[in-house]
């Protein structure tokens, strides 16, 4: 504008203020020029001045009218454009190319139309997007609602399960407590057992030597029993010899008896001379009978002794077998006992270790009982939480139902918005 000359006042680029200033100056100039011209041609000053003023005013009004018409033309164009836009037609632009404020206003108006067009297009597109999104959202919400209903059902089931779990945890807690009590009893018993085992181990060490001595003594006893058995067997053999001798004596007695009979018969046959011999034969026969009787008595006694000896021998045989078995059994028993003693000594350490472990178990069991108590409490809290969760899930279902209706509302609103946006005409219709 600095380079702008006076001639530029009538160009399109002149601002409205300049145009107003130009009109005012023109009027004043016209008045001054008229006065000058009138002064030349007319001498009456007063009349001149009056005419000059009137002519100047008329020229000023004419210029003002021309200028105002020029300005109003652009304003009318803008008014028409505004009315068109008001009807929703954004297809037309304002055709004003002046460089003044009206031109800038028209440019701004056109810019506004462009902006509105873009905005409406964007609005339409956004409405479509919102409709699509609301549909998708509705689908999602329905899915979520379905899921929420399932979650509500599952939450209810979880709540019931949690309640059962809580009962089970209570039972488990009670069982664990009883187990802990039992473990404590076991720990106490194992402590006592460990002490007893300690004493048993000490006794085992000392008794092992005693067992070895006992085995040696028993071996001596077995040897004595076997030698006694041998002696009794020898006695049996001697009795057999005595029996044979007794049989011989009996036989001799019988023979003597027979001989005495025959001698007596012969003496009788000899008559009077055989009388003395007959008496001797009779005495011999009596002695033979006595000898036979004594031999028979001895035989009876020996038979009794033989029977007893047989019983004793049988008993001894059994005893010998028993001794043999006993020796083996005692040997095995002593070996087993010695082995047991050794194992007891080893077992003492094991029992001590078991006692130590059970003590640790007792402490662990107490900790487990405490933890189980905490878990039972947690389970109760979990029951409450699951109840709350079920309630929340139920309320969530309700919320989701409301959200479904909201998405429906949103879709309807989007439709209405889209319809509203469609009322704007953005392109020239063919």
């Amino acid at each position, binding site marked *: 504008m600095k380079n702008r000359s006076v001639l530029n006042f009538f160009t399109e680029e002149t601002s409205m203020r300049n145009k107003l200033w130009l009109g005012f100056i023109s009027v004043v100039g016209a008045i001054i020029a008229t006065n000058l011209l009138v002064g030349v041609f007319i001498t009456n000053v007063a009349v001149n001045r009056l005419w000059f003023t009137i002519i100047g005013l008329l020229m000023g009004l004419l210029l003002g009218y021309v200028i105002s018409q020029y300005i109003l033309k652009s304003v009318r164009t803008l008014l028409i454009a505004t009315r068109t836009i008001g009807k929703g037609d954004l297809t037309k632009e304002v055709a004003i190319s002046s460089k003044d404020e009206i031109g800038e206003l028209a440019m701004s108006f056109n810019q506004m139309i462009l902006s509105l067009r873009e905005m409406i297009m964007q609005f339409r597109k956004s409405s479509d997007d919102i409709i699509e999104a609301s549909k998708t959202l509705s689908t999602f919400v329905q899915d979520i609602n379905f899921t929420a209903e399932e979650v509500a059902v599952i939450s209810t089931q979880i709540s019931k399960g949690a309640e059962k779990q809580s009962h089970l945890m209570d039972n488990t807690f009670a069982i664990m407590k009883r187990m802990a009590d039992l473990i404590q009893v076991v720990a106490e018993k194992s402590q006592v057992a460990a002490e007893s085992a300690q004493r048993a181990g000490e006794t085992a060490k000392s008794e092992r030597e005693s067992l070895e001595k006992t085995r040696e003594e028993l071996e001596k006893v077995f040897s004595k029993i076997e030698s006694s058995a041998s002696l009794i067997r020898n006695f049996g053999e001697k009795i057999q010899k005595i029996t044979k001798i007794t049989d011989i004596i009996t036989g001799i007695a019988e023979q003597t008896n*027979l001989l005495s*009979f025959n001698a007596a*018969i012969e003496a*009788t046959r*000899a008559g009077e001379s*055989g009388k003395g011999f007959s008496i001797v034969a009779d005495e011999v026969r009596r002695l033979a009978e006595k000898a036979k009787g004594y031999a028979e008595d001895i035989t009876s006694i020996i038979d009794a002794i033989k029977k007893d000896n047989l019983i004793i021998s049988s008993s001894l045989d059994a005893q010998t077998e028993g001794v043999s078995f006993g020796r083996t059994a005692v040997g095995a028993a002593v070996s087993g006992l010695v082995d047991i003693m050794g194992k007891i000594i080893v077992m003492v350490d094991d029992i001590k270790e078991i006692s130590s472990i059970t003590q640790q178990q007792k402490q662990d069991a107490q900790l487990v009982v405490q933890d189980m108590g905490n878990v039972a409490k947690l389970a109760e809290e979990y029951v409450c939480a699951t109840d709350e969760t079920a309630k929340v899930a139920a309320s969530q279902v309700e919320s989701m139902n409301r959200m479904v209706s909201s998405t429906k509302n949103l879709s309807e609103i989007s439709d209405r918005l889209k319809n509203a946006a469609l009322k704007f005409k953005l392109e020239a219709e063919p």
Partner: protein
Amino acid sequence: MKKGPFNQNTVWLVLFELLGETWGIRFSDIQEILSTQKITPVPKAPPFVNGLTHKRGKIITVIDLDLLAGETPRESKEIRIIHLKNSGMDIGLLIKSKVSSELLPEELETSDPLMKEFCGKNKIILRKSIIRKGADTINVLETDELIKALEEYSLNQ
């Protein structure tokens, strides 16, 4: 009737058991008393003949007195063979009981004989006398009569 060696009124007897009674044989009728001997059976001999045995070169026919008297068959450890004194055949009586001797008064009474039939028609008659000793009775076997009966039986066979 025979007389005893020391007193005319006494007699020595060998006593044994038979048929539940005490029997006796006079010393004077006995050649010898034998102990258990091996007896060899004789084929087709009469049932009461046990068999044959021998003593000092003599063959003795052993007669089972139990069978001859009709005694029930019995077992005994006390077996003796009484070899009878006879001029003819040598007879040994098999005694299955304990044998003893006793001097008894010779007061003999007659008694009913025992009769035993063999093979249906042949009879053996055991004649005996009786000596009473208190309440007991002792049957004295008449060995001569027995030998005679056996000889007759043998002839009949």
